[in-house]
C-alpha cells in the first residue's frame, strides 16, 4: 500500500504540474499565474454550479406550464459589468508592473550573443567560447542575450526562466534573465520556423560560479569577441579611415556606442547594434554630415559571426571610453 502523499508524488513525477522555476522573475510570474488560475476556477465553478442548480430546480415538469417572469434590474447588469472591469484593471496593473519592472536588463549584465538559424542555436560568449544548442551560464549573474536570426523568425524560449522573445532577421532583439537555481533546463524555439522547428531545441546549464569558471577555462583557448573584432577591423582596413583620434576620413568610433548621432538625412538615431550593422552593410543610409560618402558597402562580405565580432569591438571602444581610459 502506498499512502496518499506518495501517490501524489508518483503522479507528479509522471505528470508534472509546474515547470521548474529557476530565474529571478519566475516566482513573480507564477504568482500572477496562480491568481489568474484562481479567478478562472472561481468563475468556472460559479457558472457551472448556477447552471446545474437552475437545471434541476427549474426543469420543465409539465409541457404546458408557464414560467414566472423575471425583470432585468439595471443594478444587476451594472454589477456584472463593473466587477469584471475591476478584476481586469487589477490584472492589467499587476501584469504591466511585472513587465515594466523587468523590461530592461541590469547595467551589470554579461552580454551573450545569440544567432538563430534553421534549425540550430548559435551562442557566443564575450570571453570567446562558442556553443551550439547549449548555453552555460553562472547562477546569480544577470545575463543579457542579444539575439538575431540568419534566416527566418525564431523564438528563444526557456520555460524554467519564464522568458521568451522572437529572434528576427535584420534586427537585434534582447532578453535577459538571472538564473537562481543550478540545473539543466530546456531551451526551445517557440516560433514556427520550418521543417525541423521541433528539433531546434537545446539545453541551458546553470552552474555554480566555480564550475562555470572551470568550464570557461576547460574549453579551447580563444580570443574574446572584441579581440576578434579588432583583428577584423584592421583586416578590412576600417582603421585606415576610422582613426581613433578622430582626424581620419571617417568619424572615430571611440565612445560612440549608446550615444545619439544626427544623420545626414536629419534623423537622430542612437548608435545601437542595429545601427552599426546598418552602417557596415549600407553605409549611405546612415551617412553622417561633415564626411564624404566614401565608405563601401560590406553587404555579402561579412557573415553574421564577423558582424557580431565587429559590433562587440565597437561596443568595447565605447565602454573603455566610459571607464576613463
Amino acid at each position, binding site marked *: 500500500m502506498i499512502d496518499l502523499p506518495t501517490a501524489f508524488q508518483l503522479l507528479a513525477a509522471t505528470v508534472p504540474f509546474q515547470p521548474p522555476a529557476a530565474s529571478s522573475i519566475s516566482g513573480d510570474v507564477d504568482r500572477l499565474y496562480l491568481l489568474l488560475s484562481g479567478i478562472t476556477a472561481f468563475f468556472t465553478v460559479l457558472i457551472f454550479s448556477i447552471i446545474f442548480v437552475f437545471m434541476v430546480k427549474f426543469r420543465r415538469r409539465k409541457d404546458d406550464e408557464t414560467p414566472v417572469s423575471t425583470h432585468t434590474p439595471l443594478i444587476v447588469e451594472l454589477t456584472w459589468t463593473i466587477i469584471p472591469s475591476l478584476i481586469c484593471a487589477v490584472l492589467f496593473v499587476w501584469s504591466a508592473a511585472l513587465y515594466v519592472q523587468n523590461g530592461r536588463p541590469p547595467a551589470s549584465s554579461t552580454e551573450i550573443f545569440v544567432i538563430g538559424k534553421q534549425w540550430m542555436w548559435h551562442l557566443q560568449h564575450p570571453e570567446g567560447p562558442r556553443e551550439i544548442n547549449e548555453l552555460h551560464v553562472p547562477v546569480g549573474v544577470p545575463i543579457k542575450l542579444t539575439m538575431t536570426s540568419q534566416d527566418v523568425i525564431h523564438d528563444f524560449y526557456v520555460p524554467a526562466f519564464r522568458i521568451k522573445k522572437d529572434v528576427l532577421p535584420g534586427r537585434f532583439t534582447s532578453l535577459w534573465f538571472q538564473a537562481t537555481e543550478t540545473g539543466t533546463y530546456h531551451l526551445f524555439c517557440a516560433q514556427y520556423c520550418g521543417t525541423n522547428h521541433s528539433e531546434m531545441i537545446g539545453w541551458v546549464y546553470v552552474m555554480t560560479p566555480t564550475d562555470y569558471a572551470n568550464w570557461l577555462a576547460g574549453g579551447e583557448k580563444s580570443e574574446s569577441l572584441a579581440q576578434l573584432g579588432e583583428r577584423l577591423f584592421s583586416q578590412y582596413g576600417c582603421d585606415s579611415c576610422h582613426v581613433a583620434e578622430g582626424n581620419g576620413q571617417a568619424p572615430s568610433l571611440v565612445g560612440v556606442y549608446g550615444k545619439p548621432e544626427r544623420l545626414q*538625412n536629419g*534623423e537622430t538615431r542612437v548608435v545601437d547594434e542595429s545601427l552599426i550593422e546598418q552602417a557596415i552593410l*549600407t553605409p*549611405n*543610409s546612415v551617412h553622417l554630415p561633415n564626411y564624404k560618402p566614401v565608405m563601401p558597402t560590406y553587404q555579402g562580405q561579412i557573415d553574421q559571426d564577423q558582424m557580431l565580432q565587429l559590433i562587440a569591438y565597437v561596443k568595447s571602444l565605447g565602454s573603455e571610453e566610459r571607464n576613463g581610459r
Partner: protein
Amino acid sequence: MSELAVHSAHPPGFAHQFETVEQQREAGHLGMWIFLATEILFFGGMFTAYVVYRSLHLPSFILGSHELLVRFGATNTAVLICSSLTMALAIRTAQTGGSKGTIIFWLLATMVLGAAFLGIKLRYEWYRDWVEGLIPGVSWLGGGTHTPGVKMFMCFYFFMTGLHALHMVVGLGILTVLVIMTARNRFSPEYYAPLEISGLYWHFVDIVWIFLFPLLYLIGGRYPGS
C-alpha cells in the same frame, strides 16, 4: 402590404424580394456604399504599409518620389476629375429624363477620359520606368541612387498605381455595360439605379487617385535640394 408588392405590376428592373421600388433603390445604394467602405480598407492596408515604410525610410522615399514625373501625375489627376464630371452629368441626364443619346454621350466621354488616364500611365510612365529599369521584380537595374529603400518606394508605387489601374479597368467594363443598357432603353427618371451606383464606384476610384497623387509624387517636396 403595399400594392407594389403585387408581382404582376413590375416596374422595369424591379426584383421580387423587395416590396417597394424605393426599398430596392435604397438597398442598392447602401450596398454600394458598404462595398466602397470595404474598398477603403482594402486600399487602406496598403496605405498603412506605405505610411510605416515612409517613416522608416524617409530619405529613400523622397529620392524615389523624384523618379516620378509630376507633369504626368498632375495631367492624369485633371483627366480623372474631368471624367468624374462627365459621369455626374451622365447620371443627371438620366435623372432629369434627358435623351438616351445624351446619356450615352456623357458615358462615352467618361470612358474616353478613363482610357486616356490609362494610356498616359502606360505610355509615359510605366513604359519609361520599364526602359529605365525602375520596376522592382520585373526590370530593376539598381546601382547608383537606386538603393534598397528606393526599390521599396517603387514597389509601393507600382502596387498602388497598379491596383488603382485595375479598378479603372473594371470601371471601364462597367461603363461599357451601362452604355449597352442605356442603348436598350433600360433607364428612365424612375429607374436609373445601376447608373447611380456605378457612378459612386467611379468617383471612389477618382478619390483614390486624389490621394495617390500627392502621396507618391509630391510630398517629398519638389523644390531644389529636398
